Structures are given as structure tokens and as C-alpha cells.
């Protein structure tokens, strides 16, 4: 099981990492992406879902997703299967 799957995430965007004890907050779009990542969705699927739900082009969504994944990686939240 990947790191992401173990995170406790509530509906308001509060995230708790039981391994390290660190907590995080994410905004609405960030939460949306994390939920998809936890379900093991691919980047392309997430980009599509983002552009369907939010007022954003696929191109911008793709660019922002790359940056967001980068943030997760820097916090050590992406590893194993998610990398």
C-alpha cells in the first residue's frame, strides 16, 4: 500500500499522516486530486476530471497537477506506487 492510501483525509481538507504525525491542509482542488490519487487514478484521468468539474482548461489543469504532485513529493507524501 502506498503512502497516500494511509493518510487520513477529511472532507474539509485536513490531512493527517499517522506515520510521521504531520498534518496538512489542502484547498478544494487539492483535496479533489488527493482523493483521486488515493483511488489510484492516472494523471490523465485526474486532469479530465478537474476540467469537467472546475472552470479550467485541460492544459492548465495538467500544469497545475504536475506542480501539486511535486509539492506532495517534497513533503514525502508520494512514494512507492504513486511515484
Amino acid at each position: 500500500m502506498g503512502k497516500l492510501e494511509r493518510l487520513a483525509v477529511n472532507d474539509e481538507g485536513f490531512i493527517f499522516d499517522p506515520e510521521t504525525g504531520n498534518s496538512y491542509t489542502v484547498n478544494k482542488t487539492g483535496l479533489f486530486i488527493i482523493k483521486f490519487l488515493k483511488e489510484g487514478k492516472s494523471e490523465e484521468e485526474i486532469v479530465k476530471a478537474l476540467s469537467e468539474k472546475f472552470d479550467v482548461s485541460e492544459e492548465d489543469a495538467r500544469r497545475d497537477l504536475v506542480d501539486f504532485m511535486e509539492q506532495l513529493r517534497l513533503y514525502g507524501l508520494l512514494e512507492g506506487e504513486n511515484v
Partner: protein
Amino acid sequence: MKEVYEKPVILKLKTGMMNKFGSSPAYARKVRKDIDGVPVEELIEEFGSPLFVFSEKKLRQKFREVKNAFTLRYPNVEFSWSYKTNYLDAICAVLHQEGETAEVVSEFEYEKARRLGVPGNQIIYNGPYKPYDSLVTAVKERARINIDHFEEIADLEKVADELGVKPRVGIRLNMDTGIHPQWSRFGFNLESGQALDAVKRIASGGKLELVGLHCHIGTFILDPHAYEVEVKKMVDFAYTVEDQFGFKIEYLDIGGGFPSKNRLKGIYLPPEVAVPSVDEFAERVCSALLSSLRPGDYPKLILESGRAIVDEAGYLITTVHAAKRLPSGLKAYVLDAGVNILFTAFWYKFNIEIDREVHGTSEPCVLYGPLCMNIDVVDDLTYLPPLPRGTRLILSPVGAYNVTQWMQFIRYRPAVALIGENGEVDLIREAEDLTDIVRREKLPERLKLEW
């Protein structure tokens, strides 16, 4: 109906740590869609990005504010525009219209002022390096020359012989006014007696008429008291000169150095709090003058204020070219303007405004310029919401020194626009292109490439 999009952001929560800076809440975010009523986007469409924009309204307003502060307190004041701060023709012309004379520090600036139509006798010629030929011209055209060193006294005596005239000159003093660093490299030192030696030297030569004293204690001076000390020392010295040598000191030029509402790096308080008002400076200077001058004696007070007048009239519009994430987790933006055209970024923390509402949490970020050099940092830590590519940032105040100290390194220098008092927009300096840079180059025949 789709939901409003915000760039995805994740923030690590830290407890037990003090954060006195806050993270710039949404209400503190600064949006600027226009400059003096002209939309930012319209300016960029017409002149390209990056773009320097000056507000004529702000410039005149600022000058009048400084002028009133002094003229209300002392009856004989002259303002002389410090060319080095900004010598764009249009900016100088506005200030000359407002009644400023020209203060130049090189033969180039002297020529530029003359070309603009400023008469020689309305020019003050300062600086440590005045080539001989330029002294001949300046004396012929009756510019006011403030002497920096003994060699220059000799040069001017030679000019006097050559032209058969007795030039009226000033000498530059340097002194201890209680501030650091003390500028001691320009002019003659007061405390050591060097300044008095210079007067003796001028008197014994008999070829020059000493009529003025000049001093410039430093730059971005935040302590008005320093000017009070400067003025008192200058008045005392003027009377020593008058009593001992029979010269009449007609002007006291106290230089410039007044700060603008810019934020110096390393100063915690915002400029609105840290920077004293111009009235405080004027009060100190003028009351020091009135309390130390002899009754009925009102020598001309000359001010060479530059930054305090033009800095806040200048803006730079720059565009976000790329966003990236640094290994430290810090967000970074690459802008199309860097230290090549924003020399003052080395010591100021600019006010940053965004041209549109951007949704999302503010994040700590660093702003880089377009140069492939590590030093090209416009702001090493600020808080901005996630900016999409193409967002314009409006940086200010940038009106002082940037358009004179900018360098043509790797990139062309951008256009400069002026917004008039009635909202008219004029291009006052075109963006450079290759012809500007290669015009002076010569390629030897034998090196011509045959590809």
C-alpha cells in the same frame, strides 16, 4: 455550471512556531488593474512587456510636495534635478517645467541637459571627475561648478587664464553628521581642516571667486537630524570663509539623499512608518538655517533631491513567464524582468501588485528574473497566490536609478511610457533592438564569416 477553479495547494501545518508575518490573507492581497486610469493590459498590448511606466501626475505632485515643504519655511530655495537619478528627456522636461534647474555629474549629463535646452547658467556641475574640456565649456556657459579636489582648483585656474575670466565656483565639503557610512571620498573634509586649506588655496590663487558650498551626506538617509548637523556646519564654515577671506557665500547646496517610500531590505517596519515625511526634513533643515544665519542674510538653499521626487512615480509591469517548484519546496516564478533592468532590487523590497484577482492560498515564493545568472533575484521571499502564466505583476516604486543604471546584458532594454495628467499615454523611450547594440561594433574584414 462549473465550479470556480483554484490552483491546488497543500500546506504543512506547523504548531508551536511563531509567525509574526502572517501569510498575507486574501484581503491584504494587492490588485492593480490600471495605472492612473490606463489599464495595465492596454499598456502591455501597445508597448510590450516588461514596461516601465511613469505617472506625470504623481511626479509633479511629489515635486510640489517637496518644494512646498521647503519654500514655506525658507525664502530662497532652488531645486536642481539630479540627472543621474533619471535622465530620460521627458522626465527631466517635466521637472524643468516645474522650475527645477539641472544637477549633473558628468560631461555626458551636462551635454544631455544642454541638448534638452537647459541654459548653462541653470546647470550645477558636480562630481569627482570633470574632464578639462568639459570645465572649459562649463565656465564659458557659466554653469555653477562645485569643486571636488585640489587638482580641480588648478584645472579651473588654468581655464580662467585661458578664457580670461574669473569663474564663480563652489567647493564640496564632506563632514561628520553622525551617520554611517560617512561619505568622505567626495570633496574636502571639514573637520580635518582640509576644506579651509582649499579656501586658502583658492584665495591665494586669486583667479577664482568662491561663492558656494556644496555637500551631500549620503543616500536614503532616514535620520532628519543629520541634515540639521550638516546645515549648521555649512553655515559656520560659510561665515568663517566670509570673515577670513572676504568671499561672499551666495549658496548652500545641501545635496539630496532624502528617502522615498521604498522598503530597504533589512528594515522591518513598513516605509510608511520608517521613512520620515519630507516636512520633517524641511523643518530640520530650515530651522537650522534660520537659527544659525546672521540677521538679514538668506543665502540660496539648493536641494538636489532625486529619489524622493521620482521614485514613487515609476512602475514596472512584468509578466510571469513560468512557475516552478524548488527542491526546498519553495515556489518560484520566472519573470521577464530581472536585475538587468531593476538595479534597485539589490537593496529594495518592492511593492508587488497583481493585475487580476487570483484565487487560492498565498504561498511563500521567490521571484526570479530572466537572466541565466544566480544573482538575478527580484524578491527572495514574498507571499503570492498561485499565479498563472501570463499574470502581470506591477512593481513599485522603481522610478529612481533603474532607468539610468539598467544594463544591456543578454536582453534588450524595454520601452518606457509616460501617462500624462489627462490620461494621455506617450512612449518616451522605445524598446531597444539589435541595431542599438551593434551600431558601434566593427568586424574586421578578415573575420567575416562565410557560412
